[in-house]
């Protein structure tokens, strides 16, 4: 029923915003639906009463314009804080792991730079539909597409980023929990869109390194 358990450093931030918005909109939901029901029951004409001759009230009209405006302003500020944290470019630090995800109809090509830390060299490590990431280490995921638009969506990371041909994009993330997750294509990309599924494995550093070595050996 509710959001799947988060598994990245930004997940709690996004979830908190979600809950704040849910509480606020929930309040207005019950307020308005409640008034609607109450007024319909209370002022139903079966009592034969005459309606009031009122055209408005400047005071209440100002209140119900300004109060929502202020709430929305606060929400915008809160959202912007998280947005900046998620999306603003970060310097590439030595501890950061880099990985490239190249989408195509209907698969995810994953590539690691290998021991030299450089892409497009002979020690690159490639897999299909298997993205492994170590827990507790920041990752820079470079997202590209070979053909049409796809979208990189890992619900537990709370991350979604379109993969656009001709427009490389990137996301930063840091897994916080070991586990196996689904990578779901979220942008319609053709007849196989529904089965464009990848798997994300987050694991401790040693296991991750072991996996990298094995994958390289099997290539």
């Amino acid at each position, binding site marked *: 029923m509710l959001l*799947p358990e988060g598994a990245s450093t930004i997940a709690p*931030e*996004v979830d908190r915003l*979600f809950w704040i918005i*849910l509480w606020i909109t929930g309040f*207005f*939901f019950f307020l*308005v*639906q409640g008034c*609607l029901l109450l*007024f319909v029951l209370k*002022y*139903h*004409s079966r*009592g034969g*009463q*005459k*309606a*009031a*001759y009122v*055209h*408005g*009230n400047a005071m*209440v*009209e100002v209140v*119900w314009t300004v109060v929502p405006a202020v709430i929305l302003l606060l*929400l*915008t500020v809160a*959202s*912007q804080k998280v*947005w900046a944290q*998620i999306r603003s470019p970060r310097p590439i630090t030595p501890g950061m792991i880099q990985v490239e995800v190249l989408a195509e109809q209907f698969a995810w090509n994953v590539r690691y730079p290998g021991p030299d830390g450089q892409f497009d060299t002979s020690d690159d490590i490639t897999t299909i539909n298997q993205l492994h990431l170590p827990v507790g280490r920041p990752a820079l995921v470079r997202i590209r597409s*070979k*053909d*049409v*638009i796809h979208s990189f*969506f890992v*619900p537990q990371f*709370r*991350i*979604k*980023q379109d993969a*656009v*041909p*001709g*427009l490389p*994009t990137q996301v930063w993330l840091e897994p916080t929990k070991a586990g196996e*997750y*689904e990578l*779901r294509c*979220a*942008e*319609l*990309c*053709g*007849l196989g*869109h*529904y*089965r464009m*599924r990848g798997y994300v494995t987050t694991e401790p550093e040693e296991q991750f390194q072991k996996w990298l070595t094995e994958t390289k050996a099997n290539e």
Partner: protein
Amino acid sequence: MSEHKRLGFVRKYIFSTDHKIIGIQFLFSSLIFMAFGGLLAMLMRWQLGWPGAALPWMEKVAPAGMPGGVMVPEYYNMLFTMHGSVMIFFGVIPILAGAFGNYLIPLKVGAPDMAFPRLNMLSYWLFPIAAATVLAGFFVEGGAAASGWTAYPPLSGLKETMGPGQTLWAAGVVVLGFSSILGAVNYVATVINHRAPGMSFHRLPISIWALFTTAVLTLLATPVLAAAMILLLLDRSLGTSFFLPAGMIVDGNLLPHAGGQAILWQHLFWFYSHPAVYIMILPAMGFVSDILPTFSRKPIFGYHAIAYSAVAIGAVGFLVWAHHMFQSGMNPTLGTTFMISTMVVAVPTGVKVFSWLGTLWRGSIRLTTPMLHALGFISMFIIGGLTGIFLASTPVDMYFHDTYFVVGHIHYVLFGGSLFGAFAGITFWFPKMFGRRMNEPWGKIHFWLTFLFFNCVMFPMFSLGLGGMPRRIYDYTQYPGLVHFAGLNRMMSMAAFCLMASQLLFAFNFLYSLFRGKKAGENPWEATTLEWETPSPPPHGNFAKTPVVLRGPYEFSVPGRERDWQLQTEED
């Protein structure tokens, strides 16, 4: 008058220049298209409820799409593409702007007809041509367009990925754009130039403010859509690269395109389509604003706030388009800008809702069928609007974008909002249009069934979105993480079938009442605006003599008067 009587059947009912006939033509056509769009949705719900289950008789209808009665993925993609396109372009926009815009504007401003009656006729006749072009896709090689109603290139822009059905789709939408623009020119000219004496802007019914704003939006936004469609057609047919970047590899072949930008399309498309969502909701808000005072027997609460909020929504609505593109790869700072403008547009939306509540407050409420639909509109629109706030918050949208949460949002605003608004409008103005009344008990049953089943289908979509179920997927059971939604999806499908079946009651009531309904008289609802001062249906030319307007549109329960309504032309 006698000159009008001499018109033959064809000039009178088919190639008519009378705004009322044209409005009714739009009404019938769009109802038929919506029924068709609904049937497409039933097929989708079949596949989602019982993935891969056979529907043997469908093989005869769609041999390529459902061989042996089992749906193929391509066909599913065609279904949601055509469902969305038909509902939006040939259902909701034409019923609100085309049917009610045409029918109501001259009557409510006190004019004998539209400013340009022949242009108006052309506007109608372009509409079935556009629809036929789009739907012809089902009969060409490769089938209908299948890239969604949003048609993002490169998927939609390449011959390799989309067949000729996509070309027909884009061409049809251009033709529809012409139809909309011709209609809008007429509405703007009529409201500005043909108001009856005394009908100042501040005495216009809110529905006219809404239809007027809608027409201005249409005029300003539609050319951009047409431009985008034409560029897409060029990319598809002449090998240009407006939306197509270099280096694309499809089926192992490197394509020769270079220099285009895929997300340019999204900017152009949403520059039209966001205003278009207001084109699809403002008129419905207008109808509700006419209906609530009538059945609360009370002046509308905050006339100026409601009128100007329509204008504000229209204006700010031009500055929010890229909230559909937060995760598209566009610069995240631009995301911030559009988050701010989107939050701003929610404010006048809230003002409208509160003002409607204010109208009900201390009224004397009559729960007629149109009133039930109007109340249903408010109740459902709130859910649509509030869920919009989640989507406006960029980080939260990152999770919900392109999931079923968005599908829930759009159905609460477009079905819960626009369509309940249309039902309210039809049941309210039916007596004026046809001189007969619809059956009230059937109308009420239809309302309650629709309300119930609608919520059973659409509310669970928010749950699916929370669970991370992407939209536009043919078989969600491909994801082990989504299989647990099987039961819910099945329940939604059953509710959807019931929802569709409930519409038969409406169709029956509509057709029966057309011929057998009780005679309506001039003013069956005891309402105040000008259309209720002429016979039902009004004659060609509308008013026997030009009305002279003396007061605002919602003078109900004026103290010291015997009747609780006062017509806009009535002497004190």
